[in-house]
């Protein structure tokens, strides 16, 4: 272990079936992470390119070997460098979906799906392949060769191929990065649905806020090979001190439920613990859970509730943190009811308002977008 290496344990859950510690040094890039992850839900490993998210995923898969490593999944130790234990990738109970589908070009779709199934012990409970095929809508493709599939179809076959083995963990490395927006929207719902129905924990690597906001139950933010923040999605996104919060397109994600409609104004009301938000009219039944994304630059702060404003969403909030990492810009962390919120304001505005952690203010939200 390197001296002075600061590691961060993620307090996501009391029970952490997945413990991952990796340290490697490539000279210009160092990876140094210590993560405890829950055994359910989708955990998104988020970061800019070069942050080490793919390297971390490959280490977990055993496709790459870190000199200092400890990896435990559901009580099985897959890797322990102190005991010189390293389970090769093919002996780990995992599924891996690559950035490009990476199907075997010499095998048909059925051949690709069968490849792993033929190699797991007969006794091992394999997944219900038929069910997976139906979920992903690829039953009609079985006879085709991979070069006769569209990009989206290839990626769905790759996901089915990985899930067919009923792995203990599913690792996905930017599985949608090579697809256009339309194809992405075609596959994203599948991934959430698969996760819910098959109940396999998913580690999902992406640099797309959209995918992270739509999929993540837990979020791990990586920067320069280190874990910057981790925890449940809204809380982690709402932290003002991360690299992510400084970005131009920084945003918060709120988990809300549809509570009513104002049809005459083409508006829909959604509720969260501590308030109500008004959105453009949605075709959704009352009670439907939604994820709403709020860009930090669409949030402004006022000290008193404005008497008259054209902005509908004015909510009481508490300042939780102030971060000034970009010249001229202040990133304000806020709490609105039980939802964390980020605001980007100018350094001058922050000074004029005299913001300090714990201060009660009002936020005006100019725009929102629905993630799912």
């Amino acid at each position, binding site marked *: 272990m390197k001296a002075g290496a600061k590691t961060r344990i993620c307090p996501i859950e009391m029970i952490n079936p997945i413990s991952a510690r990796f340290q490697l040094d490539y000279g210009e890039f160092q990876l140094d992470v210590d993560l405890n992850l829950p055994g359910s839900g989708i955990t998104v490993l988020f970061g800019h390119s070069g942050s080490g998210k793919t390297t971390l995923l490959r280490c977990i898969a055993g*496709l790459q070997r870190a000199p200092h490593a400890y990896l435990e999944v559901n009580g099985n130790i897959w890797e322990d460098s102190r005991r010189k234990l390293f389970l*090769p*990738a093919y*002996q780990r109970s995992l599924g891996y979906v690559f950035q490009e589908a*990476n*199907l*075997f070009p010499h095998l048909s779709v059925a051949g690709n799906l069968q490849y*792993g199934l033929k*190699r797991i012990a007969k006794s091992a409970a394999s997944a219900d392949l038929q069910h997976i095929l139906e979920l992903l809508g690829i039953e009609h493709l079985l006879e085709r060769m991979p070069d006769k599939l569209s990009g989206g179809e290839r990626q769905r076959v790759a996901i089915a191929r990985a899930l067919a083995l009923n792995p203990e963990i599913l690792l996905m490395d930017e599985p949608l990065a090579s697809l256009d927006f339309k194809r992405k929207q075609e596959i994203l719902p599948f991934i959430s649905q698969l996760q819910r129905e098959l109940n396999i924990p998913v580690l999902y690597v992406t640099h797309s806020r959209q995918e992270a906001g739509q999929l993540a139950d837990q979020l791990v933010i990586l920067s320069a090979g280190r874990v910057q923040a981790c925890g449940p999605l809204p809380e982690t996104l709402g932290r003002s001190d991360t690299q992510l919060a400084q970005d131009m397109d920084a945003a918060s994600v709120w988990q809300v439920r549809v509570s009513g409609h104002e049809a005459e104004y083409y508006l829909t009301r959604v509720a969260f613990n501590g308030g109500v938000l008004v959105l453009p009219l949605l075709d959704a039944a009352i009670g439907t859970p939604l994820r709403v994304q709020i860009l930090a630059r669409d949030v402004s702060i006022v000290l008193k509730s404005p008497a008259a404003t054209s902005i509908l969403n004015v909510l009481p909030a508490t300042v939780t943190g102030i971060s000034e990492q970009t010249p001229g810009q202040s990133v304000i962390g806020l709490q609105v009811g039980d939802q964390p919120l980020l605001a980007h304001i100018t350094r001058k505005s922050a000074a004029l308002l005299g913001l300090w952690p714990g201060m009660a203010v009002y936020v005006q939200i100019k725009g929102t977008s629905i993630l799912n």
Partner: protein
Amino acid sequence: MITQADLETLLLTFKVASLATVFMLLLGTPLAWWLTITRSSWKGGVNALVALPLVLPPSVLGFYLLVLMGPAGPVGKFTIWLGVGTLPFTFAGLVVASVLYSLPFVVQPLQTAFAAIGQKPLEAAATLRASPLDTFFSVVLPLAKPGFLTATILGFAHTVGEFGVVLMVGGNIPDKTRVVSVQIYNHVEALEYREAHWLAGGLLLFSFAVLLILYTVVKPQAVTR
């Protein structure tokens, strides 16, 4: 016209080339795979050694093989100890010499084909529970099929076309080591130009047909040199 003696040399040539090709594939496949995946510092040296016959005069290779396999050479001593006698001027010796001489024509297309597969399919196989050996047979071999076709054709054709090594190691013994290229030489020496034309023309057509197949059917994917 083609004489009975000519026919015998043709048959012998075919036998040598077929056997040598089989041995080259058996030897060349693991060698090419090792050369593709290894990070060993031996790689450069082994690569150079395999490629030597490409640049060496066949007489040099033939000379050293004669010395090594002769009764005083280490290989010769070993084969005598085994009870099979010495290899020079025998059919077996001819096959051994052909294998060494044509090996780069098998190893290099295979190496190119293996390298073209890349790391990705191997990693996909690993995440689908296939051991490295399993991966080699279930992914690498099928994907390298064009490379094997090229290697087989080139190895066979090059063995048919060799002359110098054959003459030095095999000699000129009818029915045992006299192959087509040597027979053409015999005809020319005896001023039998008509007979020489038949064999030489045949060999020319054969070689052209082989290369035509390579460049049209197999595509110039892995044709080296």
